[in-house]
């Protein structure tokens, strides 16, 4: 047995154990991308670096066998900085988007490409479900959203953006689908939440609070719910039946609307604060309702609430929507309503905080030849014009056709990609080492099971090894140095190269470079 000390913990291991394995046995997690249990270990990614505390040098822990008396630092700022640098270098040469530009532009971060793919497949129920993960009011927003997503759409400069807004409305247009019991399986928390204001922020907060098992009461000084959406937007833009329908849907879920119910400072202190477990303020622009009435310091700045946690200075009182940031976009207020609802759940201890990826790789515009690569996954043609005009919207057939125009700009492995996971964990700056120009990207989509995107590859070579064992053709390295890439010998196709091992390659691939063609990680 060999003695090794890692991060001041000493253990004994069998000869042949690597430092990475010894660390794992001690519960010390070391990131690794090119390393995979059961495969030959040939370090390349360099994110598993650790430091020899006695000699002062860094080495890859995945391939280093433990030697007697080793003293290793696996967790320190210096080691983290080296790993971060390796990740930043990899990302500087990683031409790929984790999320599509539309999703990144959407104030609510709606998973637009996934919605499109589900519509294209005719899976309408699922598409609405995906939309509602981020957007509580798809029907209303399907009329009034200015759709920044469409301005970012990669299809726009080619022959017109995908009509995302109309597709989103389409997912919610069917009343029975929209009102299918959304809270059937929800465990009630017994908590009571007051929401002041019934605009997009308040309604959205109510929707998500109800879906997470809370009781909700909405207060509004007006006669009808909807806030600015009702009182500022003309009927020709937003048919009132649609507005009413979605507001009523929330009532069906259990919301209690207390209309004609202005909140004065007195009511707030006597009837709201003592009787509810939490309060969400969503009263819109502050000219309508000064925050001082809720016992909060006002002034011209919107700094009475934290922009990330939506917490005000008063415990249990949250604020969202236009009161904290004025915006013309209902979708932004609506997104804040959702996030405030999440924060309330965390505050009340009923729902744990779920860590989401903050990191996004993103590479900017497509060149002409790259547009061709992207169009491979789509159908040709300009956007479909709805027959009855914008207000009428798409029928099923049109919606499917339009959704098929989406080019699948998002990554196929947004959840399992190790590069994204570690980039997130190590807080990388993806632009730190960007070169003057990026490599041109391509997509190899002709294999019936998988898609290969060479510019997302980190050159770990796992697929070369896996395919080399069983395939007659297999994959290979082409070239060397910065230009080295994984490709198929003699310019054959990936389909020809991977007849038996495609699945194993995808599973081993640490990034989105090799992915299953028709598998969604987020359903």
């Amino acid at each position, binding site marked *: 047995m060999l003695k090794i000390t890692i991060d001041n913990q000493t253990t004994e291991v069998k000869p042949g154990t690597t430092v990475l394995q010894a660390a794992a046995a001690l519960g010390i997690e070391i990131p690794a991308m090119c390393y995979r249990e059961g495969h030959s*270990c*040939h*370090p*390349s*990614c*360099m*994110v598993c*670096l650790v430091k020899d505390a006695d000699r002062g*040098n*860094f080495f*890859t822990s995945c*391939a*280093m*066998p433990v*030697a007697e008396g080793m003293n290793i630092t696996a967790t320190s700022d210096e080691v983290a*900085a*080296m790993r971060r*640098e*390796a990740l930043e*270098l*990899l990302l*500087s*040469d990683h031409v790929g988007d984790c999320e599509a530009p539309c999703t990144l532009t959407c104030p609510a971060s709606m998973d637009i490409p996934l919605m499109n793919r589900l519509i294209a497949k005719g899976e309408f129920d699922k598409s609405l479900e995906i939309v509602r993960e981020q957007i509580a009011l798809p029907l209303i927003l399907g009329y009034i959203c200015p759709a920044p997503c469409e301005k970012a759409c990669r299809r726009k400069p080619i022959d017109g953006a995908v009509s995302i807004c109309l597709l989103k409305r389409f997912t919610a247009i069917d009343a029975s689908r929209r009102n299918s019991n959304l809270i059937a399986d929800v465990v009630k928390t017994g908590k009571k939440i007051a929401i002041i204001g019934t605009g997009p922020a308040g309604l959205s907060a109510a929707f998500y609070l109800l879906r997470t098992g809370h009781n909700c009461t909405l207060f509004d000084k007006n006669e009808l719910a909807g806030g600015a959406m009702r009182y500022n937007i003309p009927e020709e833009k937003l048919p009132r039946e649609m507005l009413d329908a979605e507001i009523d849907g929330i009532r069906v879920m259990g919301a209690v609307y207390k209309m004609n119910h202005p909140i004065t400072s007195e009511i707030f202190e006597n009837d709201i604060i003592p009787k509810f477990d939490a309060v969400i303020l969503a009263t819109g622009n502050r000219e309508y309702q000064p925050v001082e009435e809720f016992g909060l310091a006002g002034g011209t700045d919107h700094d009475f609430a934290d922009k990330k946690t939506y917490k005000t200075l008063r415990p249990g009182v949250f604020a969202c929507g236009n009161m904290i940031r004025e915006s013309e976009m209902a979708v932004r207020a609506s997104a804040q309503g959702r996030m405030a609802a999440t924060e309330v759940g965390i505050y009340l201890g009923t729902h744990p905080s779920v860590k989401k990826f903050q990191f996004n790789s993103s590479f900017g515009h497509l060149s002409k030849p790259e547009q061709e690569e992207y169009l491979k996954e789509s159908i040709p043609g300009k956007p479909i014009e709805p027959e009855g005009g914008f207000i009428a919207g798409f029928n099923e057939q049109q919606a499917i056709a339009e959704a098929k125009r989406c080019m699948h700009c998002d990554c196929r492995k947004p959840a399992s990609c190790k590069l994204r996971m570690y980039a997130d964990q190590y807080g990388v700056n993806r632009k730190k*080492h960007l*070169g*003057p120009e990026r490599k041109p990207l391509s997509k190899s989509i002709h294999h019936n099971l998988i898609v290969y995107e060479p510019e997302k590859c*980190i*050159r770990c070579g796992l697929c*070369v090894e896996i*395919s*080399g064992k069983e395939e*007659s*053709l*297999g*994959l*290979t*390295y*082409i*070239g*060397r*140095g*910065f*230009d*080295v890439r994984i*490709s198929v*010998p*003699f310019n054959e196709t990936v389909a020809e190269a991977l007849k038996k091992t495609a699945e194993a390659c995808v599973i081993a691939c640490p990034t989105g470079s090799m992915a299953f063609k028709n598998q969604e990680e987020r359903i």
Partner: protein
Amino acid sequence: MTPDHEHIIQTVEQIIAKRGTSADAAIPILQDIQQVFNYLPDEALKHVCAITEISPSRISGISTFYSQFRHQPAGKHIIRVCTGTACHVKGATRVYDAIARELKLTDGQVTDTDGLFTLEKVACLGCCTLAPVIKIDETTYGHILPEKVGEVMQEFLSKNQHDNHKGKQVLASDAEIMGEIRIGLGSCCVASGSEEVKQELEKILAQTRINVHVKQVGCVGVCNQVPVMEIIKPGHEPAFYAKIKPEEVREVVLSHFQPSGLFNKLKTKFVGSFEKAVVADEPKSFRKYLLEQRDTPISEFLGPQKTIASENRGVVKPCDITEYLAGGGFTALRKCLGEFTQQQVVDEISMSGLRGRGGAGFPTGRKWQMVKDQPDNEKYVICNGDEGDPGAFMDRMLLESYPFRVIEGMLIAGYATGATQGIFYIRAEYPLAVKRINEALQICRENGLVGNSILNSGFSFDIRIFEGAGAFVCGEETALIASIEGERGIPRMRPPYPAVKGLWGKPTLVNNTETFSLVSWIFRHGAEAFANIGTSGSKGTKVFALAGKVNRGGLIEVPMGITLRQIVEEIGGGIANNRKFKAVQIGGPSGGCIPASMYDLPVDFEELSKVGAMMGSGGLIVLDDTDCMVDIAHYFLSFTQDQSCGRCTFCRVGTTRMLQLLDKIRSGKGKPEDITHLEKLAISTQQGSLCGLGKTAPNPVLSTLRYFREEYEAHIQGNCPSGKCMPLITYSITDECIGCTKCAQRCPSDAIAFKPYEIHTIDMEKCIKCDICRQVCPVDAVKVG
């Protein structure tokens, strides 16, 4: 033109029949295929996969890894532009650009439309003293000026046509031997025309019936004076002729020897009168030196040197075993086999203090001990002759000139470590070295020096040659081993060290060529004698390729501990053209720049690494005040970046990003924060890379940042203080212009209007900074600012 199917299949089958079908034969097979077709036709590769164990994946992987291999048909002739350090500082980039212009090559194109010439860059042709150098097929041209490239190509083509009409040379043999004439036939000598000198000499000797022994000797070392001819006549001082031209040979020969026979005397006189009539007068262009004479450039050059690896320099004929034996050759081997146990041999090497000459300076004795201590029956000894540094050609010289010495060193190592197989790993760019080693090995086999029971000692050891295929990283021992195994030259993680688990998983000793060259001397003179030379930590001598801005460049062997000043001033004769000494770049792409303020630094492993440089394999380039340090850093980094195997992130991406930052700084677009960014990235690349190539690649950047940071800062301000960085310089013509129009006629980009008898002007919008106008101006009216 694509070769036909039948021809391809037949050729491949012949090659396979010779090379075998195992996977490790892949590289030699590819080399043979390219030899026939000038490139690797896909069809040939597919057929190789069909009839051997070599997989499509392997053949594609290796054929795109090594730079020797071409996948497109090449032109009829190949022009290789040397981009070694010495050539770089003397303007190789402009030479390359000028040839590309001459061939009308557009972006990415390397072969002209007629398919006559293919243009390639080569890391180093090893003729640093003739820089800048190009090689067209087998002919090397030195001191190339961009404006002359057209003429050179014309000359090549016309000479190439007449090549077939060479006359047969007859040598006189029946009369009394009157003396010996030695001609250096190292690669530098040949490049400078020694072959022509030799042909002329043989012709004259045949005509005059002067009966002297003509001897081809290996590298003489005084590469700055080549071609050289030395005349030995009994009873006379040896005379040394430097920079001799073929047309001068007759006079030199006749000044020493009398033609035999009256008729010949008359005829000679008659023929001679057409040339230079008076034999007694020295022709002007060449120099004659007596070796014993003091204060001549030759004696100064050779004076401070100490020859061990290059013992008997310029005296012995490379493949003459009788001569090698006469000089004490193989006595060391005899001694080891007869008197020493294996352990005693290792101990002797340990006591000598010998350290590896490949660069890092690992103690040789310790390495031998590690291999010896392994219990395996099968062990290997590899001679690392994959000298890939730009600006270094020590290994080439040693292999070409002293093949027996290197073999003897390997044999002793083989005996000491208990190995049974030796392999020479030699760069494919060194055909002469391969030829000489092959010849020498054959002679050794015939003489019982290689093979079964060497010298009847019971020790058996065979040696073969493996030709590298063009990858600098294969100088790294684990990459070299991967390459012999028929794989891409990717370094492997150490441990396990090759001494424990190397070639085919067996204990393997990998030593540099120069290291092996020193071994026999140690046994002939004793470990103590070796240890008495040098400093406390660095024993013995070191061979350097001295080049750059010195008066006398060449291959030198100096005792460790000698100062840089002694090397540059005494051996090198100081800085050329009355410029100022600025720095020495030592250790090639892994080394660093040492500034003038450290002129008295002793050459020693520790001292060099303390100042941020390293011994490296022995390139020593002298820089003067016209050299830009940012440009030098960029030059070396572009080399390592290009040679990175691409395996680990820091080297693959890190060196690329560093190079791009240097590009930005060099073109005046840098921001102050780019310097710190570059420095930080250089440090993490140094710390994080997997192998020696990546770990040392940042050295040229870090050392120039350390000693010449102000030059980086000046570039940020938009100014290149040395006037080297093309994007930051402008050309102009002063009032001294006489209106001769030479510049206008030669300008390749029409930036100078043709105005006879007027002062010319340069349109900077059109100027491509090729420097031709400055070179052709007869009155130095073109200024660079």
